[in-house]
């Protein structure tokens, strides 16, 4: 693939398209040519586009199913990714399996791409664990709820990669709101200073709970990093191909020793912030409708249709896959065993710790006395 990218010294805008960002598939499903981005996805076949479609349909289905499970009381909370499918699939599918991901709480679609066990995925949201999976088994850290904290972790991880001369990449996912946090800015300082193989992937979904992105940033979020010495890309985050291309550009730079890259994927959170949120309090139905017209899934369907690559058989297969995943997911949730009482003391420390062992023993004695007394 050809390699070309605006450096920090160029204006980012040089490679931006019409809508102030790079778009390869427009909302009508038309393929928009882009000489700088096209080489990065020219290898993507129609079959692979169908796979991306399937991924997006599946994670939307995961989202719907999890939301339903929450409404039914099977989950305590769920942070929907509805609307952000292209941003998550386009980026996650551009990664190598040995690249290491540092997500926020909303990257459940990314976790799906990593082959996470469904029970592990939902254990958190059922209130049974803080982190559901073993990060080393899928090369993906447990979710970060403290906004922005994971960006520094990704940079530190990348410092390790660089020291070893390895060609893997660390990627941090975070939202538009997170860019206001000191940590995300310090992460850019460290990443630039040590010139490490890290990708900052910001899903600008326009909202941080009730706060619009304009409260966090007066310019495009992608305008921030160049001043730190980190080139940025601004892409249509509802365009799976543009996102994939950007992520490939960024990871390729990282692997080639060219240092960090910042990607702003412009998208929209179609649902509430979490199942506890009521977005009608802070945004209009019109705004939501406007973004619905830019849906990432429909545009890819239209593109595939226009190419005659979306047969009924394909549709059926994709739906069947989504149905199957949803069923597995539900099953994993409702059959999940409750954690044992004394596991509350597990893993506070990696080594033996007399203080905590004493508390465990005392509580065990208490539980016994209660059971004994009942």
């Amino acid at each position, binding site marked *: 693939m050809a390699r070309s990218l605006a450096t920090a010294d160029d204006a980012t805008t040089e490679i931006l398209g019409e809508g102030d960002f790079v778009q390869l598939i427009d909302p009508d499903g038309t393929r928009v040519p882009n000489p700088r981005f096209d080489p990065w996805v020219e290898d993507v076949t129609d079959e692979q586009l169908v796979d991306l479609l399937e991924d997006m349909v599946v994670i939307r289905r995961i989202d719907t199913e999890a939301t339903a499970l929450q409404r039914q009381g099977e989950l305590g909370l769920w942070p929907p990714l509805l609307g952000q499918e292209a941003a998550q699939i386009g980026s996650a599918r551009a990664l190598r399996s040995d690249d290491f991901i540092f997500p926020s709480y909303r990257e459940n679609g990314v976790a799906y791409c990593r082959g996470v066990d469904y029970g592990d995925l939902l254990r958190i949201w059922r209130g049974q664990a803080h982190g559901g999976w073993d990060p080393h088994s899928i090369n993906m850290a447990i979710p970060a709820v403290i906004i922005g904290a994971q960006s520094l972790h990704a940079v530190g991880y990348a410092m390790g990669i660089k020291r070893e001369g390895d060609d893997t990449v660390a990627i941090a996912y975070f939202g538009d709101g997170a860019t206001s946090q000191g940590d995300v800015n310090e992460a850019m300082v460290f990443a630039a200073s040590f010139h490490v193989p890290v990708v900052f992937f910001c899903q600008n979904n326009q909202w941080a709970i009730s706060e619009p992105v304009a409260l966090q940033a007066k310019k495009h979020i992608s305008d921030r990093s160049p001043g730190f010495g980190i080139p940025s890309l601004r892409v249509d985050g509802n365009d799976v191909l543009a996102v994939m291309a950007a992520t490939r550009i960024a990871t390729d730079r990282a692997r080639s020793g060219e240092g960090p890259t910042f990607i702003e994927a412009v998208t929209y959170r179609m649902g509430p912030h979490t199942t506890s949120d009521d977005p009608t*309090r802070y945004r209009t139905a019109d705004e939501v409708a406007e973004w619905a017209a830019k849906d990432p899934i429909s545009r890819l369907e239209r593109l595939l249709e226009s190419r005659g690559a979306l047969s009924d058989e394909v549709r059926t297969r994709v739906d069947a896959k989504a149905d199957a995943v949803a069923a597995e997911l539900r099953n994993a949730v409702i059959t999940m065993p409750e954690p044992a*009482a004394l596991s509350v003391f597990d893993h506070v420390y990696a080594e033996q710790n007399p203080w*905590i062992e004493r508390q465990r023993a005392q509580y065990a004695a208490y539980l016994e006395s209660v059971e004994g007394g009942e």
Partner: protein
Amino acid sequence: MTSTVTEAAVAADTATTTLTLSKAINSGLRRALADDDRVVIMGEDVGTLGGVFRVTDGLQAEFGKDRVIDTPLAESGIIGTAVGLAYRGYRPVCEIQFDGFIYPGFDQIVAQVAKLHYRSGGTVSMPITIRVPFGGGIGAVEHHSESPEGYFTHTSGLRVVSCSNPQDAHTMIRQAIASDDPVLFFEPKRRYWTKGDVTENLTNALPLHRARVAREGTDVTLVTYGPLVMTALDAASAAADEGVSIEVIDLRSLSPLDMDTVTASVRKTGRVVITHEAQLNGGVGAELAASITERCFHWLEAAPARVTGFDTPYPPAALEEHFLPDLDRMLDAVDRVMGRENSLSGWSE
């Protein structure tokens, strides 16, 4: 800059209404905003949304965007700009959305808010109130159920308070905002929906630094604050059925501690159980146990007992019932200080 008290406000003062604890704070904030235009509210989602718990509901609409300020998503930024506002003569009220999100603002709280009066030789004051919904019991995800008050009671220059009922919530938020010292105001989030009678007339209100005897008793003193006051009162009722008379103290102020009230009770009962949700190690209960022992050594029939969260991080929701002190664990400790059979009977160190 203080506006004159209007007749409507006087009328409001004499009325008593039934409010939830969160609405009682809301009405206290409204009064503070109305009474003093140097008061500003700031935080994440406090404006348009009215806060994730709706504690600031309606205030931006009423007082405007320059009095009730939705800030960028950065806690150090919130506290740090509040310091600047205080330098300019304002009395900022900052909301930290959940307990576990206060740490990014920790430096500004500990090194600036707490110390600036001292550091400036008394020439600058920091009348900043930092509201923190805290504690567990609502089945939340991680970082949403913590009890960080111990970090702040260990910080000289801060006042730390926690309310347990709607009237105190209303009274204390107004007193906190009126205080010339910085106040960490811990709101027991699982009691936000508790209802009670509230008057806006504070003429006879207890000062902010005073504890309250929530229930009188003679056998054992049970000291607590915030969300566990209700649980402690339930425990006292249950104990009464078994013939044990528990005096419940609602501390209200965690720093300074009202040791006069605590000491008087413990010298009367000779036995004390301290309970809070926060971790045991170095928690408010440690200071209480130490201070009580220092002041009441010759009155004590047994070592002060503590019933607290474990020295683990706050666990996942499925396990929080174990972490959180409940009525049974409190009564087990009461048995302990009474010298009766309890879970640690026969326990060897």
